């Protein structure tokens, strides 16, 4: 039996988690819409599309955490900043599933709930974006040394 390529394994993990997470989110998180209204029928495909995005982002984030760590360990000169950048990217992928669903459950009238989401998700994503900007700058400042005549 031939071994599956890295891309296939990555895609399988991302898609399986994505597919499982969509019905799970519909069962676990009941939206709390303003005024007790229900979602409009024409809007439902758009909400479903968002669920697909969230599920695939979650799956990609998990696959990134699983397959990215060995790469991180074997990278030359891996620093705490690289580790932080790895977690920041993973956070930008996995957070949307709990984040958007908690927004839907908590609704807009629960002030402390909304503030908790703002600080747990939005604030941490702003910090993560700062980490990624610094990482990007460091990569530019210190390009990898390449051996002349080597295969790239």
């Amino acid at each position, binding site marked *: 039996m031939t071994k599956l390529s890295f891309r296939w394994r990555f895609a399988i993990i991302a898609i399986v988690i994505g597919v499982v997470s969509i019905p799970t989110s519909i069962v676990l998180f009941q939206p709390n819409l303003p005024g007790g209204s229900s979602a409009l029928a024409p809007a439902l495909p758009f909400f479903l599309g968002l669920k697909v995005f969230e599920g695939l982002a979650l799956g990609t984030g998990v696959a990134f955490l699983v397959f990215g760590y060995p790469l991180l360990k074997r990278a030359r000169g891996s620093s705490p900043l690289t580790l932080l950048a790895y977690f920041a990217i993973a956070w930008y992928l996995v957070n949307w599933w709990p984040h958007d669903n908690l927004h839907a459950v908590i609704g807009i009238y629960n002030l402390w709930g909304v503030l908790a989401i703002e600080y747990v998700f939005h604030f941490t994503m*702003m910090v993560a974006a700062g980490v990624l900007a610094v990482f990007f700058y460091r990569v530019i400042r210190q390009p990898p040394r390449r051996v002349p005549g*080597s295969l790239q």
Partner: protein
Amino acid sequence: MRVRHPWMDVRVRVAFITLVVAGVSFPLTFVIWPPLVPPWAPPGAQGLGYGLVAVECLAMGGGVAFLAFGFPMVKRLPVSPRLAFASYLGIGYYLVNWWTHDHLHAVTFSLEPTGFIWVTIAIEYVFHAGMMVFGGVLALFFARILLATSTRGPAGDLAAVPAPAAIAARR
């Protein structure tokens, strides 16, 4: 004639732009947008709301500085130009979007249910789905950067030896 200030290294210039943009956007927030935390809320919640606005403004300032100073350097990245540019845009978007994004959410709070649903959907697709797509781009960017700096494994080993020996090793 252009005057150069050698003492103003990139960190000072980034901090300067960040603070200027944040300093302008912070008071502007209360003119343009509805409050994130309603006026009847307790002082603790008000404080948290102001803290969040401050962080959003700083993130926007950092994003403007990143977009301004990062662009000339994008070509130096050891990945394809398209991936480098997409990653640069992604990080810039991650920083600048929050000020508009969070306050647009606050605008929806005052809409009637149908308007709330459609505007929320638009925000979700433009901001949330946009950030998810950039998350995938940045994951690829990160993996390519790590592969370019990796010392062990197939790619790293081949990169570390002269070309003829590497070709022979591959065969």
